[in-house]
């Protein structure tokens, strides 16, 4: 089991027993503001003038130093921004001593400043570089950083060389330690008073409940009106002999768990409570991971859900997203099948058909909405005049058909029908009768439609006098198309009034001669 401890600070700039002066002499030069040439390959000044390579390299004497640094750094800033190029390696000096190296991307000098400050606190040293040569990162004595005084080639077995203030050290890489493996191996720490959760911390919690307690917990939560969802989870067996992990749990996701229930569950054996840190990571209540897991969220696969146990010191993974069911559907049902059901058996007798003619009769029902109108042909002139006064919505909302029985006008639901002729109401879709009248006998609309041969593409109209008639839906045309006579339109020339977008400024270099700077004087100098 690994443990986290803050290392006592030590003078990281002085020579260490494990560091040898071979193969180089060592020695650094202070970088000055505006300096543009450097001995160290792959470094350059950033906009603040601080010397920076592509990476920062942190050297720690032990793994505890690395963990302490990760803990400190993740508490201040997200590790996610470093993960793209973060590497933790165990390295070996030529004398055989082992140290730990953490390589981070030097996104900006602010990031490396923070990393260096945290590293110094836990006894580490910070360097910067790009490939194999890393120079000491800036400190108070040289605020713009350091550059190597001289460079020697690396021995064949070395992979990196760090240049300190008065030493040069080579390291050979022994093995890499992936951060995700490290995270899963670290033990959780118990937090004093960490089990007393604030209301906002209780907004969503996970409960891992032993299978036998499941029904009782569901019933208890349901009675107390706690919103929750539940699912059955089985931790994956690592081997056929892994008997201890072959337990089946119920996993609850509960919302706004009252404090009294939380206290009860905490003291109940078989119920463990977890607090979600991210979408797919939860840590047992009362414990905390040494490293802020929310700051390295991208390390956790979205297809897995991670449960970090505190007391048991293990990490369970579950296939994500969690498919849970509402607890209200899992409460116990009382079913009694042994009692006989009581009731009467009913029969339906067939009726003889009675044939009566269909007639219009004054309606006893409240008046329906008017959907159309049947205008006699002699009122066509009035319709033409009215069209001039109709707004565009009305023209578009009406459809009309000219028939030998009159002009049939049908309006869409959002406009009022033209107040001419006999207003028509709809007793069934497409079945129109005069307003205030009804069809008797009052049979169901579908029965009526079937007996009339009426279907979806037809309008069947019962005029106030005379026999009913049918007209196809396709015969009705929008009134705005029927309203216009043929109009002669002359052509017009279209003028382009657009303003040209501003041109891009493009640099053109004039010939300036071979000695363009002949006689050019610097400001404040006489030369």
């Amino acid at each position: 089991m690994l443990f986290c401890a803050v290392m006592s600070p030590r003078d990281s700039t002085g020579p260490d027993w494990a560091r040898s002066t071979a193969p180089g002499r060592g020695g650094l030069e202070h970088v000055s503001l505006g300096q543009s040439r450097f001995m160290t390959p792959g470094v350059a000044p950033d906009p603040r003038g601080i010397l920076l390579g592509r990476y920062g390299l942190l050297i720690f004497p032990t793994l505890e130093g690395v963990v302490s640094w990760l803990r400190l750094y993740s508490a201040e800033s997200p590790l996610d921004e470093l993960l793209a190029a973060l590497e933790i390696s165990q390295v070996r000096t030529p004398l055989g001593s082992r140290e730990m190296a953490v390589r981070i991307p030097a996104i900006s000098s602010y990031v490396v400043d923070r990393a260096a400050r945290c590293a110094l606190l836990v006894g580490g040293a910070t360097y910067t570089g790009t490939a194999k040569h890393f120079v000491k990162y800036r400190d108070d004595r040289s605020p713009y950083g350091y550059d190597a005084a001289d460079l020697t080639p690396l021995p064949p077995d070395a992979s990196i060389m760090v240049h300190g203030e008065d030493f040069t050290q080579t390291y050979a890489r022994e093995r890499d330690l992936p951060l995700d493996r490290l995270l899963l191996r670290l033990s959780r720490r118990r937090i004093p008073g960490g089990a007393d959760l604030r209301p906002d911390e209780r907004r969503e919690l996970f409960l891992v409940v032993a299978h036998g307690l499941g029904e009782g917990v569901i019933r208890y939560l349901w009675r107390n009106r706690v919103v929750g969802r539940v699912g059955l989870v089985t931790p994956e067996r690592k081997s056929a002999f892994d008997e201890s992990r072959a337990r089946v749990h119920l996993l609850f996701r509960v919302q706004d768990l009252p404090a009294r229930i939380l206290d009860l569950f905490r003291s109940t054996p078989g119920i463990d409570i977890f607090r979600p840190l991210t979408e797919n990571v939860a840590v047992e209540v009362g414990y905390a991971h040494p490293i802020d897991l929310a700051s390295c969220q991208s390390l956790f696969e979205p297809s897995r859900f991670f449960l970090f146990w505190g007391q048991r010191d293990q990490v369970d993974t579950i296939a994500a997203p969690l498919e849970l069911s509402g607890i209200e559907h899992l409460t116990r049902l009382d079913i009694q099948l042994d009692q006989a059901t009581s009731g009467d058996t009913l029969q339906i007798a067939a009726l003889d058909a009675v044939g009566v003619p269909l007639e219009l009769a004054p309606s006893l029902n409240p008046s329906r909405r008017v959907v159309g109108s049947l205008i006699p042909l002699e009122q066509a002139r009035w319709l033409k005049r009215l069209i001039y006064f109709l707004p565009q919505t009305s023209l578009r909302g009406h459809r009309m058909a000219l028939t030998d029985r009159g002009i049939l006008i049908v309006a869409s639901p959002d406009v009022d029908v033209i107040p001419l002729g006999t207003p028509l109401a709809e007793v069934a879709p497409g079945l129109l009768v005069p307003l205030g009248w009804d069809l008797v006998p009052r049979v169901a609309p579908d029965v009526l439609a079937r007996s009339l041969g009426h279907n979806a593409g037809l309008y069947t109209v019962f005029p106030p006098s005379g026999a009913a008639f049918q007209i196809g839906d396709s015969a009705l045309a929008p009134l705005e198309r029927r309203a216009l006579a043929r109009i002669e339109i002359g052509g017009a020339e279209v003028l382009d009034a657009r303003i040209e977008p501003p041109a891009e400024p493009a640099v053109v270099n004039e010939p300036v001669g071979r000695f363009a700077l002949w006689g050019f004087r610097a400001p404040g100098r006489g030369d």
Partner: protein
Amino acid sequence: MGWSDLGELLERFVLPLVSGGELVVGRPIAIDALGDLEAQIPHVTPQLVAVDEARTEVIAELVVRPPALVFEADELCLAACVHNLLFLVHPRADSWAVSTSARMRVLDTAQEMAARPLSQSRSRVLARHGLLHNLFRLTRMDTKISWWTGSATYLGQRPPGRLRTWRSVRRVREEQSVASYEDLLGTVEVAPVVTALLRRAPLTQLLAMTRDGPPLYWEDAVFLLRDAELARAVAYRSLRGSEPRQVVAAPARFAAAFEQMLERAPAESDVRAVAAFLVHLNALLVVGEAGDREIGPRSPLLSAVLSPERAGQRQRGLATFFSLPAALAQIDPRLGVPPGVATDALLADRWLRHRAQVVEGVGEAVIETLAGRLRRHLTAVLPEHVSM
């Protein structure tokens, strides 16, 4: 060619710099020559009026009443500085006849020219923006001609006609490429001078934050946020684009600069102004979605830019930008919610959905960390002093 005639400099370099077109780069302008050029200002009125009108057109897109602009020594120095910086990428400036010390002399001259007093005057800032607004859009057409026995490259120059003759016999091939701001003014050598230049024209830098450029120092630019008209122009310009990553590019850079500002020792009033501006940008994103019925309960913009799968590719400052309202709400609720959001039920609902989605996307730890950093700079407000 030297620039001894101000009229010619204005016509061939300054006017194209302002209104676009071909701007001619010739021999560098010495500090001593500035005095002679400045003395000619009263005698080149037609060219000056053309430049001032072009600048007024540029500024009219930002403010309702552009101030009266008069080209004077300040603008002349800044234009000469840009010219000298562009000379450093002239092919002749890289030849054997130009030593490193000679290049340093040009660079020092440009630095001297850029060292104009910093100004917080609205009209001065607008005038400088009118002159330098195209700085990030500068391009140069480079032509590479290769024929059967050799090749030649012409940087911002037209290749001689003799090289193009007998194209098929000599197997002439012509390739053209465009050098952008990064190649012209983004090099390590000239970057400090460009930074100094843009500190004199903070409005130009704020309006061009969607593009690459030197880092922003909010301390130099925060006064612009106190001018409602300019702040509004900056806010609307920074949210341009249709693709989600494009929309949040400038806000993310603003927030990254804000993070760096918190590392220094800024005045509390400055921190408050920048924080309020970033919260306002958050509100604009909410307003953009509030009236759209096709958008579901989850914001597609936040889902795209804060998705856990792309956490590693997030732009710097993006998490801070979206976490800021929640972090500020813990310290000073007046800053956490822009005024007016609560009065519109639709907007308030969308605002809350955004905040909840941000908590899901970035995690509470990030918000807590940001709140911790803000507490070092902001004085917390007692709950009874908060009037919502």
